[in-house]
């Protein structure tokens, strides 16, 4: 039962590997970037999962309530930063894909390689 209770961590592992699989196997550059995004989202899930405390609530101190249990807010803040980093990476990746399309006329990895092979 305990193994199933950690389902968020199982989801983390599955999503992580799904993303990595897409990055490695897909030849289409956009699909590679999608895989990379999935890969990064898995880590967001890991951080969000670990900050949750059973019965915990938002960390706001109230008058007269002393024994409140709080969830840890720090990982959420960290992951907010990591999401921004992830978006920038994806945006830059897509910009590069556009330029690849402009200069090669294709976004399939092996076709790009073949085009350069003749140089």
């Amino acid at each position, binding site marked *: 039962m305990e193994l199933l209770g950690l389902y968020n961590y199982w989801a983390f592992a599955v999503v992580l590997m799904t993303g990595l699989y897409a990055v490695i196997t897909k030849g289409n550059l956009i699909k590679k970037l999608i895989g990379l995004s999935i890969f*990064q989202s898995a880590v967001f899930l890991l*951080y969000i999962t670990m900050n949750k405390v059973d019965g915990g609530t938002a960390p706001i101190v109230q008058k007269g309530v002393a024994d409140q249990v709080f969830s840890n807010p720090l990982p959420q803040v960290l992951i907010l930063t990591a999401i921004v*980093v992830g978006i920038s*990476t994806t945006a*830059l990746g897509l910009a*590069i*894909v556009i330029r690849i399309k402009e200069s*090669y006329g294709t976004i399939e*990895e092996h076709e790009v390689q073949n085009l350069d092979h003749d140089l």
Partner: protein
Amino acid sequence: MILTDHLPALQVVVPMLIAPLVVLMRVRGLPWAVATVTSLMAFAIAVGLTNTVLDSYSVTYEMGSWRAPYGIELHVTSFSALLLLIVTGASTLTLVAGKQSIDTEIGHDRQPLFYAAWLLALSGFTGIIVTGDAFNIFVFMEIASLASYVIIAAGSDRRVLPAVFKYLIMGTIGATFYLIGIGLIYMMTGTLNLADMEARIHEVGELRPILVAAGFITLGLALKAAVFPLHAWLPHSYTYAPHIVTAFLAACSTKVALYVLLRFDFLVFQQNLSTHEVQFTVFLMPLAVFAILIASGVAVFERNLKGLLAYSSLAQVGYILLGASLVSMPGLTAGLMHMFNHALAKGALFLAVACLGMRFTRLELVNLSGVARQMPWTMAAFVLAGLSLIGVPGTAGFISKWMLISAALQEGALGVALVAIIVVSSLLAVVYIWRVIELAYFGDPPEAGQSVNEAPVWLLVGTWVAALMNIYFGIIPSLPLSLASESAASLLQHLP
């Protein structure tokens, strides 16, 4: 507080704040001037910090006066000072020398953006070096990487695009692995401050997540540092990037990743994971040896000049790692010295390549036949830096290779094998540098009528400054040596 107290913060903040201003500068030549002055300021700050570190042992700075471990702490040690000198020095010298080379490769309309990205890369690298906070390292690592992708992709050859895409994918996977590792450690210790982390892992009962974290962090950073066999992104990125960008990044980017790797493995994990030093050696020493042998071997057969030097860089990463994986005082000192000396040699070589790039559009070796007669100064600087790369006595490269060999000899039978490997790969270096020299000095110029001029004076001066520094630090190595041995001592202080 006086201004000098804020140097650790200014080191990062100055280039970061000036970068967006550079984007707005539309006057021709102004972005270069401002970027160069900024880089010079960063170098001056690095020199100031080095002086302080040489006097007292280390400098700590509480960001926003929040006490560590709650706030972000900046921590400058002799190890950081060594890296700061390499990064800011490389950036300054390449910028000062490289204006004409950049002008020919990058259009004036794109230059403000290019220099802004350059400054962001500089700020990211220095940020990684000075910060004492694990998550902060991740953020700066991504700033530096994203900016590096941009300045590499500014190259005019279209083959740079697939290369940079590959770099982006692999770099992001590396950074994400690192992030997973930090997450696991945070889960067990509740801290992100490196010094605090090291202390709190003691209190952790179940060490398996820490072990997993060590694996993720080592692997992620090895990807960033282009440790063999995770180096696939490096050769093409360096080959097709603008020449000056290659000179800058080849001198510092992999070394910064190695710096973080060593800091984690020696300062955070060493004391807490039993037999960690054995695992470190068993895992990384074979990779270092393969990197040295295979990359040097590939360089011998490479047909593009920049590709040849890029593969040689991979071999040098191997040397640095080999020194570190000996986990001994002389070994680590040699590895750190090699960081400094390789930056000098490779910086000078790639600046010489930039000189050649002013006169040749393609840098295949066959194009360079007989070039030494037309560009004698460039090729003389190339030879000088090449000798340092090989490790000829009297040059900087000799110092670190000699130290590496004497460190290896203390390891008994294994050490003798390592020495043999170092000697073989140095001979391979002789072969691949000689291929260039033979062609340039003894080859026939392709067409008798075609005349090529010497490179612009300013670029040549920069190249020669870099080349002569190889000689200077080969004869008077006391500055990098004292920094390297102090850093090695601090990295090894926890060893049983």
